[in-house]
């Protein structure tokens, strides 16, 4: 049990994040062509127009909630005058709303994917695996929030959050995480697996969110680069010309 705890809360996070970073770099270097949203809006837009913004915007709130809940120590929020009860109520209210939005959007998107013939046909095995992890991660997260809201209250800011922060110092306090209830264990494990999987799925499009668009001129001119033109492109490793 101790070994499992050490692995799950002491090694898995680093493995997952390591894979996330290296996988993303690798994908960006070798599969930029496959780096796309692979949108299916051309086939069906009625449901997508509801489900996709729901899911994505909900996800922003979910991420923001995680950042606040996990990275900001309880002592900081207390210092600005937010006591534990207020924080708890606020976090749960927002968390439930964001979670329901995101999960609802995701369910709608998956339902659309399954029932719209062309969209289902365009779903790869990779997508299906990704959806399993996405649903599991979001589902356990939402369940955790709901249990916390309507069942036994649990202050994760005394265990899960310090554990996560301890990861950054490379001295993970696995004992803290081991104390947390099962639903937290499940959620964290699945989320870590999702992180590890992320670079190898279509989710990579999130890393190239076009924020720079806001700051660039409308028109883009590019020069035809003779040295890197077709036929003169740097060949794949192992395919270089010899004797030149």
């Amino acid at each position, binding site marked *: 049990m101790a070994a499992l705890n050490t692995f799950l809360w002491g090694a898995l996070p680093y493995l997952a994040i390591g894979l996330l970073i290296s996988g993303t770099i690798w*994908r960006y270097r*070798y*599969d*930029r*062509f*496959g*780096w*796309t*949203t*692979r*949108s*299916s*809006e*051309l*086939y*069906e*837009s009625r449901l*997508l*127009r509801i489900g*996709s*913004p729901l*899911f*994505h*915007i909900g996800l922003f709130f979910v991420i923001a909630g995680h950042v606040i809940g996990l990275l900001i120590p309880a002592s900081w929020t207390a210092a600005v005058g937010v006591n534990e009860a207020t924080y708890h109520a606020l976090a749960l209210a927002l968390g439930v709303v964001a979670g329901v939005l995101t999960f609802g959007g995701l369910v709608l998107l998956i339902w659309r994917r399954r029932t719209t*013939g*062309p969209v289902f*046909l*365009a779903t*790869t*095995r*990779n*997508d299906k695996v990704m959806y399993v992890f996405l649903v599991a991660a979001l589902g356990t997260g939402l369940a955790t929030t709901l249990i916390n809201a309507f069942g036994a209250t649990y202050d994760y800011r005394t265990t899960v959050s310090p554990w996560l922060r301890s990861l950054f110092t490379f001295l993970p306090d696995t004992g803290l995480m081991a104390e947390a209830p099962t639903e937290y264990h499940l959620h964290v494990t699945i989320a870590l697996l999702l992180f590890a999987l992320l670079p*190898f*799925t*279509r989710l990579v*499009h999130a890393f*190239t969110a*076009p*924020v*720079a*668009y*806001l700051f*660039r001129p*409308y*028109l*883009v*001119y*590019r*020069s*035809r680069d*003779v040295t890197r*033109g*077709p*036929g*003169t*492109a740097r*060949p*794949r490793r192992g*395919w270089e010309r010899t004797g030149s």
Partner: protein
Amino acid sequence: MRVMAQIAMVMNLDKCIGCHTCSVTCKQTWTNRAGVEYAWFNNVETRPGQGYPRRHEDQERWRGGWELTRRGRLRPRSGGRLRRLVSIFANPVLPNIRDYYEPWTYDYRTLTEAPTGDDFPVAAPRSLISGERMDTVPWSANWDDNLGGMPQHGPDDPVLARMSEQVRLEFEQAFMFYLPRICEHCLNPSCVATCPSGALYKRAEDGIVLVDQDRCRGWRMCVTGCPYKKIYFNHRTGKAEKCTFCYPRVEAGLPTVCSETCVGRLRNLGVLLYDADRVREAAATPKEQDLYEAQLRLFLDPHDPAVADAAERAGIPLAWLDAARRSPVYDLIATHRVALPLHPEYRTMPMVWYVPPLSPVVESLTATGHDGEDEQNLFGAIETLRIPVAYLAELFTAGDTAPVDAALRRLAAMRAHRRRLNLGDAPDPAIAASVGMTTEQLDDMYRLLALAKYEDRYVIPTAAVGAAEALEESALGGCSLDFEGGPGMGGGHGSGPFGEASGRPAPAAVENFHALRSRATDDRPADAAGPGARVNLLNWDGNGRPAGLFPPRPERDTTDDTHTGER
């Protein structure tokens, strides 16, 4: 002044017979792949008609092109930067596949596998999108071909809708013509402006607008941004694709495939020099009807020494300046002023221009028993036949009939002048003078529009002599991109490990080498994609025996097969 060069095209609509050769050859070169079955980089529309995709000119609905803000600044009609990013999760105005058409193939297997019987077997259409049987094929890229103005289709033409009711009623008898369309390679491209990733770009050397397939993330904003709907979303690779102006050929000094194969020889290609610094200002001209003139003023006279000087300082090669001086495109657009831009009111400053068709006028004259070649008759007819002129004006000059009128008169004058010569009469300078030209100019127009010799139509400088040979090979050697493992082509569903067609695209020459070799030597069918894959006859390269295409062979043929290489 910042001189930039643009390879532009002028199409002489009088000579288009609507044979669709350009569309077919373009398709075979560029879009005979899964994911872009529905895409026609070049299509030929019958006007009046709905066009392809259906009613794409209705910008109230599709929000393409630019608009002027209240402060007189340019903004994409679909909204500014922030609005685009906010709506990025679901593009609110993306055409559905059915607005183009649902691509299909036929169930050929039922023909070859039908048991002997009294009934003829039928190959039912099968959707390439859903894989389902289709009861009927309801629409395609040119479904209303030759049906221009028919009650079923005419009223759906957004251009016609802008004209008065009376005009619309009379229109059914008036005329019809063909309009071949490719990407306009605009000077102020709204697709480029709406691309959040910056994957779409205008090439500085020749003005060709291209999609960087490695940078495109499939946000599909460009599809909305382009008012001509000439950007297509490849639904298999999840990337935008568009007319490339056959850049590998153009770089090698060859005309585009659509131009090369045009049986009417109506396409002209050449270099235009323009002042890039004034593009935005010209596109922001307040009155839509002035946009044509504003764009004309952007073009620089290559014969002007000051322009030549500025061009040299801007790094434009001498060969390009020389080509600009001999450019048929410049002559038709600026010197003779017979070519007009398509929908200048979109403010994208399009660079594929059209010589408006005079033939409907001539035809209706001849039909009434008049001499359709006589200049007085023709001038009179252009004046009386207001409907064709008004329609053409809606297409080419945002509704201002004066430039269309002038262009048609010049064409009429050329006709009348050349007829006199043909009949052995002395040339009458009055004809040319009546349209503000000289007899020599009319002869030059005749050379460009009627004789239209290959070397007069296409004056294309090569991009770089060194690179050209390598490029030529990739452009000419067989079918460009369609092979398994290539950039998103070939193969069946789920080809790459990370979704459709992931993997690194090979450089063009390498890719071409492999494609050619596999075509030439491989005894596998080019499209053997595993169980459930179907053979699209359009794409089949004649190699191999795809399952279901032929009836089974008797076993004893095996020895023959080794000789014929299983072909």
